[in-house]
């Protein structure tokens, strides 16, 4: 009976140790993102998909433009990320404006497919006397792989397009200022899917031209790692320990107590 108790206790200890290990490793993994934007922030925005200005996550880009321009930025999003595009419009001076204006930010993936926003103020109307408009769009989780028929977000280049959609004609072409910032949160292993793209959805991947600047600073993730490894391995170990515990319970100390020693 004592053996059983010892076994059980060691089982529990091992389980606790494993859990602690999972916790720390998970946390360490989640801490991956670093916030240093060493390269100079872009001060221009592109005017089409082809000319979009490449920015990195957490890099604040600015642009001087005219109301009515279509401003494009491109950013890389990798497996397990949930990017949020923030766009701020500094409107032209009140005196020059004649009415309300409606602003909108749209996000497209590397195949120029429109991407849905899970939440965020994608479109907003600014009153005539407003100074700024703030827009945001949070994408769905970027998955490692999806069926070709789905338009789930896949790792690769994303485009953010900022423009005015509703404007009094008199207000067209006034000088404005735009800021764009893409942040991202980690979705964790619960969203890790099987399969991987051979190449991220980066435009021009097949022609090996351009697009180098639009890769994440530390390269694309290979996608094989997720916290599911820890859960599964931990579960396996715990299951094995529980098995030993169960065995000990029914098997007893090795031999029935009424059997005399030496039989």
């Amino acid at each position, binding site marked *: 009976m004592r053996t059983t108790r010892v076994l059980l206790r060691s089982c529990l200890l091992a389980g606790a140790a494993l859990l602690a290990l999972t916790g720390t490793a998970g946390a360490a993994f989640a801490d991956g993102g670093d916030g240093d934007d060493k390269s100079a922030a872009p001060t221009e925005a592109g*005017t*089409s*998909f*082809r*000319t979009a200005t490449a920015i990195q996550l957490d890099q604040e880009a600015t642009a*001087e433009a005219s109301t*009515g321009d*279509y401003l494009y930025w491109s950013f890389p999003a990798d497996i397990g990320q949930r990017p949020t595009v923030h766009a701020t419009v500094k409107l032209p001076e009140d005196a020059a404006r004649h009415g309300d204006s409606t602003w909108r930010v749209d996000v497209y993936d590397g*195949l*120029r*497919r*429109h991407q849905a926003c899970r939440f965020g103020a994608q479109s907003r109307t600014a009153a005539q006397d407003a100074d700024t408009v703030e827009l945001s769009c949070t994408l769905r989780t970027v998955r490692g792989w999806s069926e*070709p028929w789905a*338009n789930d977000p896949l790792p690769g280049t994303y485009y953010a397009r900022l423009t005015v*959609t509703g*404007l009094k*004609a*008199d207000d*067209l*072409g*006034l*000088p404005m200022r735009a800021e764009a910032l893409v942040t991202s949160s980690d979705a964790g292993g619960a969203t890790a899917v*099987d*399969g*991987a*793209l*051979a*190449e*991220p*959805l980066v435009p*021009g*991947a*097949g*022609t090996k*031209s351009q697009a*180098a600047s639009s890769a994440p600073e530390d*390269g*694309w*993730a*290979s*996608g*094989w790692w*997720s916290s*599911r490894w820890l*859960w*599964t391995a*931990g*579960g396996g170990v*715990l*299951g094995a320990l*529980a*098995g030993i*515990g*169960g*065995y000990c*319970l*029914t*098997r*007893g100390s090795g031999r*029935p107590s009424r059997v005399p020693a030496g039989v």
Partner: protein
Amino acid sequence: MITRHRLAAGALTLLAALTAGLGTAGPAAADDDEPARPSPKVELVLDVSGSMRARDIDGKSRMAAAKQAFNEVLDATPDEVQLGIRTLGANYHGDDRKTGCKDTELLYPVAELDQAGRTDAKTAVATLAPTGWTPIGPTLLKAADDLKDDNEERSRRIVLISDGEDTCQPLDPCEVARKIAAEGIHLTIDTLGLVPDAKTRDQLSCIAEATGGTYTSVRHTDELSGRVKQLVDRAADPVATPVATEGAAQCSDAPQLKSGVYTDREKFGEHRWYRVDVEPGQELRAAVSVGADRAVNRDYGVLLRASTEHGREIVRGSEAGDGRTDVISTGLRYPKPEADGDIDGDNDEGGESGESAAETVCLQVSNSFSAPASVKTTPGLPVELAVDLVDAPDEASDVASFGLGNGWWLLGTLIVVGFLAGLVWGWVSRWRFAVWRTN
């Protein structure tokens, strides 16, 4: 077998990641060795019509503001840009419309600017005095001729600065701009209106819209110089120039496309077909955007469809939208399985199965733009088609990453099942011991 497959896939992805990592360093270094891109050509077109005399920009005349802006721009022009200056309405004082509408002059020919060139150009600009008519349409035609040459990769840009609408109807400058853009010489026209009235604004923004350019309304000198500098710099940005192609009405006559970016024109409601050969183990990625380069009705859409030569649809991308827009775009991807994949072999549709034969995929681009009857339907809307052929991804065999588990339910289940198995195992071994003892 599955494990080996997985391992191989893992190794491949790792390799892909490595090559991608190398790739980021590669092209940047390769850029220096590659043959230089053709230098972009920019022409500044300045309205020198009589109305430029008006003193309403920061207390100075519009002409003075323009001259000051030109001086600053000429100093700041990047060396690789070939810059020219053309004037309109600079020479003819008279009232004869016919003569007045021919009044356009190439003040400084399109060339790379050295120090002397900059000074010459500035001197030439300094001599200008507000004079005549506003022949925007004819000037744009001439300006496009100035920029034309044999190089199909060169990007070209016209920056039109004007303070009044065209006085040489019926040649509509907006139609002119659209025609020039449709010639496929990668020409963008950006327009700037100096203290514009409603008509000028409509016309200039129409010209910009027709060529994918931008329109700016200018009320201060610094705005003018800042914007023109920005536009000239923009021309200097290296961008992949698309290749002109012409899609056919049916797949059998369609042009064969490889990886690259293509442009075409498509009328309202027209269907255009292209063909792409996809090898087994390759993935076709196609993205298309159709531009709204004129006034169109509120609702619109685009459909990109990939089908086999026999007409079976493989995959489609579609998008619809409403309201103000520059383009509407969509895309699709079609990974073609390896030829030896026996389960997925039926993708080949009847024909010879597998044998590493490339499959011809027909791409159909159609749009559902419409326009009021007053809007001209020719030339068609600009279409940009990006085609990429890359390695196909490996198939996912499970929804979860490597089929692994996640979460407390998994742990609980494993523990309970493990525990029960242990109980049974202990009981069995106890039973066997008892059996052994009785025997």
